């Protein structure tokens, strides 16, 4: 199978779905770039190039550059979705949700319920998450806990190129509003990705690694850190099971609970902040529904309760590390032995 980066996988997913269904449109700031300039169109193709080339094939009517106007973008996408299009709107950085969240959480996500089941809102919002690029406090956050908490919204967080393509196609074909979180440091990550279109169902975790001693649940970039930690721990004889939920809403609770039922130990790794985060959510799930099996405190490895610092030296301390994950597993594994 051909190797592709996450960027290529996402681009391919968009192009294939746009070809398949004329109702699919892409809308956002500089999704092509160059509108109203003396230079060329497709000057950006998205700030990190994910939508590059689409305007060439599908034209400006389906690859729609906008002013800097996130509320109108999200609202337009919501209104378009409710009336017959299948928009893929871009919120360039997830950190910007604060200027436009009403249209996502009070409008798009609630239409169906408020309207008594009569609305269908097939909307995808692509957005970037993640620290690690010295982009500082307003361009490095991972607020997917907020997205996960919203009834009516689905939240997808891929960790590799194969999943990215299948989950994005699923998101586009899905009839509910979906927010799709892409980690800004992972676009160049490669994996085997089929050329043809395929979908990955929501709510089905990926068990990255089987193990019997400790369950690790990790999201996005943390999946890779956790895998590295698990590798190292395996050499010490600690056998970790690593679960990547892939979607936090819906969440594959069965896979997590079944795993903890076997291991009795849980570490959740999440690049987001700790309070009311996804790590807390998963910990609470397990403390409620797999209590009988639990043999050690549930450890969360998250960012601290601080904004994201700029200086690379501080940012490195901010992000969970392979070392801090391994340490948490050690603590958990050693507990009560």
């Amino acid at each position, binding site marked *: 199978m051909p190797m592709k980066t996450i960027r290529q996988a996402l681009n391919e997913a968009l192009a294939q779905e746009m070809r398949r269904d004329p109702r699919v449109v892409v809308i956002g700031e500089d999704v092509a770039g160059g509108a109203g300039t003396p230079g060329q169109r497709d000057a950006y193709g998205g700030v990190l190039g994910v939508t590059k080339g689409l305007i060439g094939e599908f034209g400006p009517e389906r690859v729609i550059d*906008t*002013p800097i106007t996130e509320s109108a973008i999200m*609202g337009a996408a919501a*209104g378009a979705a409710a009336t*017959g299009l299948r928009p893929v709107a871009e919120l360039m950085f997830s950190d910007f949700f604060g200027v436009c969240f009403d249209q996502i959480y009070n409008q798009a996500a609630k239409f169906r319920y408020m309207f008594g089941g009569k609305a269908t809102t097939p909307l995808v919002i692509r957005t970037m998450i993640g620290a690690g690029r010295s982009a500082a406090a307003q361009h490095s956050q991972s607020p997917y806990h907020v997205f996960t908490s919203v009834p009516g919204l689905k939240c997808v967080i891929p960790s590799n190129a194969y999943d990215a393509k299948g989950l994005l196609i699923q998101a586009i074909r899905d009839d509910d509003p979906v927010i799709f979180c892409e980690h800004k440091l992972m676009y160049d990550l490669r994996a085997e990705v089929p050329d043809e279109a395929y979908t990955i169902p929501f709510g089905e975790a990926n068990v990255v690694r089987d193990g019997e001693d400790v369950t690790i649940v990790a999201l996005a970039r943390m999946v890779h850190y956790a895998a590295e930690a698990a590798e190292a721990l395996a050499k010490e004889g600690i056998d970790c099971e690593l679960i990547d939920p892939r979607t936090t809403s819906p969440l594959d609770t069965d896979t997590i609970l079944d795993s903890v039922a076997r291991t009795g130990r849980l570490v959740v790794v999440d690049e987001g902040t700790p309070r009311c985060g996804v790590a807390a959510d998963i910990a609470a799930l397990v403390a409620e529904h797999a209590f009988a099996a639990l043999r050690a405190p549930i450890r969360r490895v998250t960012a601290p309760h601080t904004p994201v610092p700029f200086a690379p030296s501080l940012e490195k301390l901010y992000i969970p590390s392979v070392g801090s994950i391994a340490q948490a597993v050690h603590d958990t594994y050693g507990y009560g032995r």
Partner: protein
Amino acid sequence: MQLNRDDLIQAYRTMATIRRFEERVQDEFSKGAIPGFVHLYAGQEASAVGVCSHLGDGDVIASTHRGHGHSIAKGCDVTGMMLELFGRQGGLCGGKGGSMHIADLDRGMLGANGIVGGGPPLVVGAALTAKTLGRKTVAVAFTGDGASNQGTTFEALNLAVVLQLPAIFVFENNQYGEGTGAAYAVGSRDIAGRARGFGLPAVKVDGDDFFAVHEAAREAIERARAGGGPSALEVETCRFYGHHSGDAQLYRAKDETRRLREEHDCLKHFRRRVQEAGLLDPPELDTADADVAALIERAIAAAQAAPPPDPAALMTDVYLSY
């Protein structure tokens, strides 16, 4: 005026339906039969009907917290609406939405909205659908003087201009946003003028006068259908009741609502105009009034008789699939 007799009687009937609906909702709300909050549209009927009489089911509107009038004008079932307001099974939204979330996508009614400024961006989207799929339909945002100051509204104006979409923004200036005057809250004191600054045609129109609204709307909607891009209308109007049912209205002049009802009643104005022009006779209009009154009573009786929603409805329709 390109309205024939049928059009006229239809327009009157719709305005009268809104008026009667609101008056009876006010009664029922005061009696405690309707839960939550209701924001009554009485006094503004010429705006909803003047605009919506140009629209078909394929055209889309988005409304506000004060949405009953727009819903009725856009063709929502009055009984379904009343059941909804009462929170009953069979309501237009199954009792899950209530007054502030009346919607009917089949009628092109994209929802009342509890968020001031929530509708205009949605209308940009509906207009985008129309343009992208080549539908020749238009989308209309009804919004208020208060909402005209919300950032989302401004953004919607700009984006509609940039994309040259078939969107119409109707600013119903009833002089108040809750208890704050438009004269205070709109810095420019000129909603249409400010909209014009965004690069779209915008006119002010007398909301007492159905015919004036109808004509201004016709022009804007025809332009939009023909690919001429967005427009704005500022309809100068008035609300006969408080911000919501139960509002003490201390911000109003003494006697103001009495004076408005006497001098600025768009229904009276309509009757006078059609009678003076010899277009419709009083008995025809009275018959319409009587029909409408009976319709609303039936709706209320139905609402009173209907059971509450099935408890299972709490958990349904959050997602299509999950």
